[in-house]
């Protein structure tokens, strides 16, 4: 049962445990002097105006979206890269088509101006 991923699980548990332990330790050691001003949201010493519910620009979302598409592409490239040498020229052409189609997408986004920040 002890597979290669057992270490990953153990590391997850031990790492989280140690971090939480240091938080707990700090809680025991540190002073606590509550004051109403300390409970305020930081805004350079001013009284905060409104909450953080400003509308953020949609461009962040567009980058996230491009990332999703290209991340998925990369995932398909991994198994391909692993067998590239054994499969020969055919695999290369297949991947060329695959990449070309997505580079076209990137080019489209570029021309549409979504890669521009301003």
């Amino acid at each position, binding site marked *: 049962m002890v597979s290669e991923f057992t270490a990953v699980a153990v590391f997850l548990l031990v790492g989280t445990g140690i971090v939480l332990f240091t938080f707990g330790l700090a809680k025991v050691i540190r002073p606590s002097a509550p004051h109403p001003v300390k409970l305020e949201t930081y805004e350079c010493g001013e009284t905060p105006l409104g909450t953080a519910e400003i509308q953020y620009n949609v461009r962040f979302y567009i980058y996230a979206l491009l990332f999703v*598409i290209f991340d998925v592409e990369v995932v398909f490239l991994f198994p*391909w890269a692993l067998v590239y040498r054994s499969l020969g020229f055919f695999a290369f052409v297949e991947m060329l088509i695959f990449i070309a189609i997505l580079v076209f997408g990137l080019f489209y986004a570029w021309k549409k101006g979504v890669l521009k920040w301003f």
Partner: protein
Amino acid sequence: MSDAFLTNLTFYVLSFCVIAGGIFVVSSRNLFHSAVFLVFTLFSVAGIFVMQHAYFLAAIQVLIYVGAVAMLMIFGVMLTTQLTNVRLRHVNEQAWPAFAVCLFFLGFLVYGLWDTPFKISQAAAPAEVTRAIGTLLMTEYVLPFEVVSVLLLVALIGAVVIAKKE
């Protein structure tokens, strides 16, 4: 601690994480909490994949679902919700009927699955699963593979057209 005990323990702990995470995803009032529990559930599902010897798929699950899809959800939540007004009603009027329907559906699934004999195969899995997947993608599944790129292109263009500011 025998092998079987460890396997069982891992499975039940992971299943608990998956199911508890799923329940929180659909029931949390705070949408951002839902998204974080979604990340938790997806990560636990990756653990389940590891138990089923699908190591490549587990890595992909974390990479695409946690790193991309859940992150996109979080972006969506951050762009459309406010932290302050989470006290609104988050379910519609159909909650109880839906619960009944789901219970019936689950009962139906369990009833259907419990006694079905599946052809359990004892064949050995390929030694290097990732390499085998690569070979399969390049030979047997080459058409779906190329269609995926077209699908991604369509999704990219569609999403850009929809989300772009006029």
